[in-house]
Each structure stands twice: as structure tokens, then as C-alpha cells.
């Protein structure tokens, strides 16, 4: 990014001579404010945190290093990986990581199945019911996450609806509140609208003619889905999957309210390392682990976008 700023900084002198370059400068300047906000309030803290996690406790990190407990300090310019060692040798961390990944995979899978089902229902069959379902699936978008978590907790609690309903038939239902199942349900619930919007809009943009031609040629529903609908809506699908997974993997509110105390998702345990145990360095190590996983998923998203851009001849 420094290189970009350097090249554009050189242009003002001759900008009246080149209209194209002038609009490039204008565009760059207009686009700058949100980037600066993000760089200042996300970029800088993340870099500070990275330095702090390997023991550089000077500068802006002084306060946090003085307040925190169990802080490993770097020896001059030689970084210390003590905090990483602390975290990676803790049994609970690996359990939390496993739970985090399992919840992410499970809830993403549920979201894709539900959203895909609605999308296909709407695309292939249509009708009133399909439209109603696609509207209902958007409802969670209206509801703050705190409420959603609370609602799901009460719904699947020991005296909740599920167990009350099953009790009418003399069946002893499961208690899902404060278990990983509730986290999966809650995460899927809150992520559903975005995936539905992405996937239905992707499927709706596929021309009718293609599907009808395949039908006329004798293709069954499964074949149409596999050879036409799936490949043609691949990009919105990948976007839905990556956004859902990234949202779930770093989530805090849903697992905090609905999940068990231990093992819990890393989002919750890094928060309690920070606030309850007062071990900021170890907390940040966990944050970087989650970040690495999310960045891996994010790379998939960027790749899918570039692929579609290239196919449409935009680059």
C-alpha cells in the first residue's frame, strides 16, 4: 500500500495534463476515508497485537503489558513465543479449537442445505409456498443476535417448546440449551438470511430457457441441478459459504449465550482470557489462530470472485 501512495503522491504536478490520471487521483482520494478508518482502527491494533503477542511490550503496548498477567517479554529484538507455547500446550485450547471448527462446519452445512433447498424450490417449482418460505428465511436478519440467542436458548431449554411438545406425546425430549447443538442451531439461524439472499438471487439469474431446454432433452431434476444450476450459481454459493463460515468461526454472542462453559468456541474463550483471566497475550494468540482460519476461508472467497471476473472478461 505504501507503494500505491507513493505513486499517486507524485501525480498532482502534472495532473491537469492527463484527464485519465486525474480521475484516478480523484477516485483514489474519494475511496480513501473508509480505508483510513479501517487502517487506523483495525490495521494498527492488529499489528500492535501481533507485536505484543511475540513479546514486544513497548510503545502503545505498555499499558496492556503492565496490566496483564503472565506476559512473556521479548529479549531485545528477539521475539518470545512464550504465549504461543502457553496456549498450544493447554489441553482446553485444542478442545475449543476442535469445537470451533466442528460448529463452523456443521452450521455452514445446515445453512447451505436450507438455503439451497429454498433456492431450488423457488427456482424449479415456484409458487406461493416457495415465495413465503423465502421471505420467512429472511426474518432472522430483522432480529438482533442477542435476542436470537436468547430465544433459541429458551426454545430448546429443559422447559422449552421442543421438550414441552414431545412431552405431550409422552416422549422425554433432549435438552439442547447450553450444549454445542444449541450453538450450531443458533449460528445457522443467524446466518440463514444472508445465504438465502445470495443463493436465491444466484439461482434466479439463470435463464429459464436453459432449464427448459434441458428438460426437453429429457434431463431429470437431479441432472439439471448438477449440470446447470450448481455450476452456474457457483460464485454466489461460494460467497454464501465463506461469509457464513467466517461469521460463525469468530462469533461470540451465540456461543456465549447458548453454549456450554467448557469446551466453548474460541471467540468466547479468548474473551474470557482477556477479561476474566487477565491474560491478554494468550487471548491475542487465540485471536490470531481464529484469524488464520478465517483468512483461509476468505482466500476462497477472493479466488471465487476473481474466477468469475475473469470468466466474464473483466480482467
Amino acid at each position: 500500500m505504501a507503494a500505491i501512495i507513493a505513486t499517486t503522491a507524485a501525480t498532482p504536478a502534472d495532473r491537469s495534463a492527463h484527464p485519465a490520471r486525474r480521475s484516478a487521483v480523484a477516485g483514489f482520494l474519494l475511496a480513501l476515508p473508509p480505508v483510513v478508518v479501517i487502517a487506523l482502527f483495525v490495521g494498527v491494533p492488529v499489528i500492535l497485537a501481533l507485536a505484543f503477542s511475540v513479546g514486544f511490550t513497548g510503545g502503545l503496548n505498555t499499558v496492556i503489558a503492565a496490566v496483564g498477567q503472565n506476559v512473556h517479554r521479548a529479549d531485545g529484538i528477539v521475539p518470545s513465543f512464550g504465549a504461543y507455547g502457553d496456549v498450544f500446550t493447554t489441553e482446553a485450547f485444542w478442545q475449543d479449537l476442535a469445537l470451533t471448527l466442528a460448529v463452523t462446519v456443521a452450521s455452514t452445512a445446515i445453512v447451505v442445505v436450507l438455503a439451497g433447498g429454498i433456492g431450488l424450490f423457488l427456482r424449479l417449482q415456484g409458487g406461493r409456498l416457495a415465495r413465503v418460505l423465502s421471505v420467512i428465511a429472511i426474518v432472522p436478519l430483522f432480529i438482533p443476535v442477542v435476542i436470537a440467542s436468547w430465544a433459541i436458548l429458551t426454545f430448546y431449554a429443559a422447559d422449552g417448546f421442543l421438550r414441552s411438545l414431545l412431552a405431550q406425546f409422552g416422549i422425554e425430549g433432549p435438552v439442547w440449551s447450553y450444549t454445542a447443538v444449541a450453538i450450531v442451531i443458533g449460528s445457522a439461524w443467524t446466518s440463514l438470511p444472508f445465504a438465502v439472499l445470495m443463493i436465491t438471487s444466484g439461482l434466479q439469474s439463470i435463464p429459464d430457457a436453459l432449464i427448459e431446454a434441458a428438460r426437453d432433452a429429457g434431463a431429470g431434476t437431479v441432472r439439471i441441478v448438477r449440470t446447470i444450476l450448481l455450476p452456474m450459481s457457483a460464485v454466489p454459493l461460494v460467497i454464501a459459504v465463506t461469509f457464513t463460515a467466517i461469521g460463525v468461526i469468530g462469533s461470540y454472542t451465540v456461543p456465549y449465550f447458548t453454549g456450554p462453559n467448557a469446551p466453548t468456541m474460541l471467540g468466547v474463550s479468548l474473551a474470557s482470557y482477556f477479561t476474566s483471566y487477565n491474560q491478554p497475550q494468550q487471548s491475542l494468540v487465540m485471536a490470531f489462530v481464529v484469524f488464520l482460519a478465517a483468512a483461509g476461508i476468505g482466500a476462497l472467497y477472493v479466488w471465487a470472485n476473481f474466477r468469475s471476473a475473469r470468466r466474464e472478461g473483466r480482467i
Partner: protein
Amino acid sequence: MPRAISAVLRTTGATAFAITLLVFVLGPLLWLGAHAFAGSWTYPNLLPDSWTLRWWQTVFTDPALGSSVQNSLLITPIVVIVSATVCLPAAYAFARFEFPGRRLFLIGLFATNAFPRMGLFATLASLYYALGLMNTIAGVVIVQLLGTIVFMTWIPAAAFAAVPRSLEEAARDAGASRARVFLTVTLRLALPGILVGAVMAFLAAFDEAQGTYLVGAPDILTMPTEMYSLVLNYPKQVAAVFSILLAVPSVVLLLAVRKHVMGGQLAEGFQIK
């Protein structure tokens, strides 16, 4: 005959899918909503033993809850306005200008989503102490602003990009000034997308609890942060009442722009171009 059977199967399958989805999505909300009006509730009855409005009274007469409503209704609009001021020019630039770093910027804005929120807020603390932003309205506004930027940039950018240049050129040819073309053609056509972006930003800011709590507590409590303590300290029914109140602004706003959200403005905004 097999055709008839498969038709029946298909209908049954669709019905089962519809019922599952209905219960999955609406069930928890209705169940919680019923608690707001429930006197007492004996397991395993499907309805409360008695109905009452006294929980509503509890909420409306509690001064702490009232001030959190006020804080939320004050801070969230500020966040949306700041976010619009910072992001909308950028959205226009992303849609209409080719400049070095454009794609890097777009992806960089997205990358903020990949870092776990809680970790980010933990890292923000040092910077906030250094800048004196802890426990201030400005600090809360900034923390909420961070979550709105992607919505306020990407969705309007897609809307600006979708305005046909030929229309703008036609208006220019007809003698309209540059500013007039922008106001009457470009801005007008992109307005639904901008509205969807603004509503999503409003919801993101209104909903933000963890960062607001870390920065604002105990002086500045908003409705979602108040909800955390409510859940622990009050009967279930009070939290249910508060939930309904907390959902009102979102529902009203989203109903207002529902057509555009469903029409693909949101989906369009999340594809980098």
C-alpha cells in the same frame, strides 16, 4: 401410477421442508414473544397458565432500561450518518473510477470481517487508552462504525455501478450540468441500494454489543449491552419484553426496504467487480 406417487412424495417432501423451516425460524421468536405476556408457565404446557402485562410495566418504569433505549436511539443514527459520510463517496469511486489499489482497498475492507470481533476489540483497548476514547460516545461510535463500513461501501458501490452510463450521458447531452445529472439521475437510481446499505449499517450498529460493552460500560449502555445484564438479573419475561422492544426498530426499517433487499441489492453488493 409411479408418476402420481412421485408427485405425492414431492408434495410431502415440500410440506415437511416448509414446516421444519417454519418451526426452525419462527418457533423460537414466537416462544419468546409469548413469554413477554406470560404470568406463570408450567412445564410441559404449550401455553402459559395466565396472561399479564406487568413485565411491560417493569421495563417501562426501570430508569436504567429507559436510558439504554435513549442511548441506542441517539448513538445508532450518529453512526449511520458518519458511516454514510465516510463511505458513500468511496462507494461512488469504487463504481466509477479506475485507480491503483482499487481491488486491494475493496478486499482490505472485507478483510476486517475475517479478524474475530472479540480479538479486535481486545486489541483496540491499547489504542483507545492512548487516544482517550475509552468511555466516551466518540469511542462507542467508532467501535460501531467499524462493522458498518462493508455494508455502506459495497452495497451502494454495486448500486452506483448498475446505473447505466448512457442515461447519464443522455442527460449531459440534453444540457444538464454535471451536478444536476448526479443528483437527478445517478443518485436517484442508486438510492434503493444506498438505502439497503444504510439499513444494514443501522442494524449492524444497533446490534453491536461486545465492542460497545468493552468501550462504553459502565457509563454508556445501549440496548443490546443492557440485554446481557438483563438476562442474568431479571426474570425470563422481562428479557422477553426487552427483546420485543429491541426488535422493533429493525423490523420497521427492514419492512421499509424489504422489496429492495429481496430484489437482490444486498446479494449484488457482495460480489467484487
